[in-house]
């Protein structure tokens, strides 16, 4: 998604007092802490007082929150607390995998097209085409083709993000190509692959890291949207999107079936966005602004 709008550094006219490091990096700290909590929750799910998140129990359907079932139960008698905790696994996994996949593919395409005019001309037209399909629709279309599984969801979401990463990497490469140190490398007879890996690649890491966090955040939202409209992970896997989708039917009598997973979902995405904003400001802000 095109969520990569970047706010600039304040203009010179505004004097910013030098504040202690923890105040300056408050977004990184807050985002990181929240994300760490979500990660721990996902990893330690079996030891957090949960029961089997898919265990059905017809006799305890739609219970309100109680000592035994902290968040109540859904219409099939499953424990909402356990389902929400386990749901973190799917969301974080999808987010991280999509970010890794999109960055890897985008890095490859971007490096190649930044250094080869012919590949660039063809590749960029294809990427333009992909980018002209709204990303949620692209993912939906790909999911309609294949059956619901974790791998397919990750690929479907990542495909929509690849063009954006490719463009970012390409713009960095095009900028760097004219730099004296690259010219020096060319002049001293360094081979093109070696220049790409040794001189160009390290310079793409900072903007890519920032971009990866935004992709991760938007991938988690997209996964939830896909699950919500029935084109995502199979209903047997507890994900936040699936839990919310199933809660729709009983929203009017048991709103917590939607509001609680929704709160966890939003908090996780918020954490990652905060981390991304913080990283962007901390790392070279000018590079990130090229997107």
């Amino acid at each position, binding site marked *: 998604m095109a*969520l990569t709008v970047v706010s600039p550094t304040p203009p010179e006219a505004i004097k910013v007092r030098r504040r202690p490091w923890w105040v300056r990096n408050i977004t990184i700290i807050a985002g990181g802490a929240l994300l760490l909590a979500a990660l721990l929750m996902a990893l330690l799910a079996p030891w957090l007082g949960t029961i089997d998140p898919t265990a059905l129990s017809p006799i305890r359907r739609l219970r309100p929150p109680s000592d035994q079932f902290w968040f109540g139960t859904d219409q099939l008698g499953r424990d909402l607390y356990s389902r929400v905790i386990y749901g973190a696994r799917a969301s974080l996994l999808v987010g991280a995998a999509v970010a890794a996949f999109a960055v890897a593919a985008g890095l490859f395409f971007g490096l190649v097209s930044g250094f080869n005019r012919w590949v660039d001309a063809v590749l960029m037209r294809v990427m333009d*085409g992909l980018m002209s399909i709204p990303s*949620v629709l692209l993912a939906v279309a790909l999911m309609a083709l294949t059956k619901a599984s974790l791998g397919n969801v990750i690929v479907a979401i990542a495909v929509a993000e690849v063009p954006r990463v490719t463009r970012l990497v390409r713009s960095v490469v095009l900028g760097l190509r004219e730099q004296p140190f690259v010219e020096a490398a060319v002049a001293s007879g360094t081979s093109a692959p070696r220049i790409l890996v040794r001189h160009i690649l390290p310079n793409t890491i900072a903007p890519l890291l920032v971009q990866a966090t935004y992709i991760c955040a938007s991938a988690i939202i997209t996964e939830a*949207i896909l699950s919500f409209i029935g084109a995502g992970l199979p209903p047997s896997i507890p994900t936040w999107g699936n839990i919310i989708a199933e809660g729709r039917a009983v929203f009017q009598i048991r709103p917590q079936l939607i509001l609680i997973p929704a709160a966890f979902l939003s908090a996780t995405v918020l954490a990652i966005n905060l981390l991304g904003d913080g990283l962007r400001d901390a790392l070279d802000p000018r590079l990130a602004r090229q997107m």
Partner: protein
Amino acid sequence: MGVVALFVFSLLYLAPGDPAAIIAGDIATVDDIARIRAVLGLDEPFHIRFGTWLWSILHGDLGSSIFSNLPVSTLIGQRVEATVSLAATTLVFAVLVAVPMGVVAAWKAGSLIDRAVMVFAVFGFSVPVFVLGYLLIFGFSISLDWLPVQGFVSITEGFWPFLRQLVLPTIALGTVYIALIARMTRAAMLDVLAQDYIRTADAKGLRTDRVLVGHALRNAAVPIVTVIGIGVALLIGGVVVTESVFAIPGLGRMTVDAILRRDYPVIQGVILMFSFVYVVINLLVDLSYTLFDPRIRY
């Protein structure tokens, strides 16, 4: 657009299941299926089928739904009003809220208002559309009972009922869009406000609002309009979800239903149409640059 068409066609081509076998039904023989396939032209190679398909698209024929057998263009026609209404109200609402927000945030950069706008923007990006939708329904429809829960009323049945139904969906769908536009407006305004001619305008005693709107906003318009155009992708993705949450009979709902039933011609038609709209809007955005910046010529 060519790439989009090829992609969308491949979607149908690669789709699992044989349409001929589905049409033939359970008691058909292998020969029957082969005959139907020949009639439908399904035995032709990829490039010929793509050619015929593209030809019929250019003539406005998007094929027929596998389920209702109605032409896809008719189905789209039936649903388009609700979606266009929602998208239009959201667009207007978002621009009217976001641009002033961004301008004030940039004008008072570093102040509490600025912080508040930025915090709102981060939240806007982080709360998914359907979450916001349910929160709004819970707050305003169920708890307070101020606004209708779900549904859609055509504008032909009166303007106020029409608007009442759209208030919550518009806010839900508009928030992420507002966040996007407000952030871009603030960024663009900050760049412009640091320019010399702004200081000149200020120094010669021009009123602040004239400087902000007449000098600064006008010069910041190009990136703002660009992001409004790009953001339409968010809007289109969000429409699909918002219509499900609020039970609005629009194209988004139709897409979701088509996905659940694997109705490929409908999915194809809708994606093609949305992508077309998106490309056209961004073309218009590009053309509008000349309005804001006379230096740009085509």
